């Protein structure tokens, strides 16, 4: 079996463990410590930020401008599609103009 298949299956097993593991672990405790809960609540924003920040740092004007505009749209209007489409348009337009 190729390395790629092993990675896919390994990723699938680990993902399933994450999806069932929280329930398996938590169902053993009567109460969750508030600090653990606060830390868990911060997980999505913390993880996803690390996927954006280095890309922004390595990006040029079109990349950074698209993130700023998309972030602003998300802040004021909410929702994924408006911010995503606006960011995409800014990115493509600036790459055409500057590239």
């Amino acid at each position, binding site marked *: 079996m190729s390395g*790629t298949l092993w990675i896919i299956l390994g990723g699938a097993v680990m993902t399933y463990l994450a999806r069932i593991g929280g329930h398996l672990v938590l169902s053993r405790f009567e109460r969750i410590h508030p600090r653990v809960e606060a830390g868990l609540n911060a997980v*999505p924003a913390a*993880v996803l930020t690390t996927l*954006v920040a280095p890309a922004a740092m390595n990006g040029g004007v079109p990349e950074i401008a698209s993130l700023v505009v998309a972030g602003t749209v998300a802040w004021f209007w909410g929702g994924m599609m408006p911010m*995503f489409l606006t960011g995409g348009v800014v990115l493509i337009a600036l790459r055409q103009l500057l*590239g």
Partner: protein
Amino acid sequence: MSIEHSPNRTTRRDMIAGARLGVPVIFASAPFAILFGALAVDNGLSVGEATLMSAAIYGGASQMVGIELFGHKIAPWLVVFSIFAVNFRHVLYSAAVGRRIGHWSFIEKAVGFFFLVDPQYAEAERRIEHGGSVGFAWYMGMALPIYVCWVVESGLGAAFSRLLPDTKALGIDFLLPIYFLGLVMGFRTRSFWFPVVAVSAVASIVAFKFVGSPWHVSLGAAAGVALAASMPPSSRPGGRR
């Protein structure tokens, strides 16, 4: 004998109610499924491997991270670990939703948790908030159409990836960070959102420079989580001000 209370009828109604909630999710995730398939082939995966990845992992952001790392000649276990790091948030969903489905059988739980993606979790929480109960029929009625579409669209994106001529000019290579930023913004009403984002951003950039990819994901995330856990309880919403 009353027909409207027959179990079959209730089951079907619950499934349809669940499926209806899945419709906007199917539309919103379609571009990303197609994009994933195209990027996967771009990063050296076959059409079959790309489709299998969507079917087996079923987690958009983690699949994107996985194929991104495939192109970097990184040790396989690190790629697997990075997929786990991105999907680690599901531990939280799992713990939270587990309290709602105590009445499910073991098999139903084992099947149900596989499909616990972000919108599935969000709709389950909202159903509880509105006084409903999360039944297996409702849950799978929402989950299965989303899942089938995700897998099929990934395969189509992979098979027809050559129809996207210049991914750089189309901006496709940088659409993902925009998408991830959208997910980050979606959590902006949570307590400590801004300090967590700021600390994770700085820590991940520093780790990216001095430790390297993909450790910047885990190290940056650990910094943000540690910050939230170290905040005094009195400053949390719900705590004393």
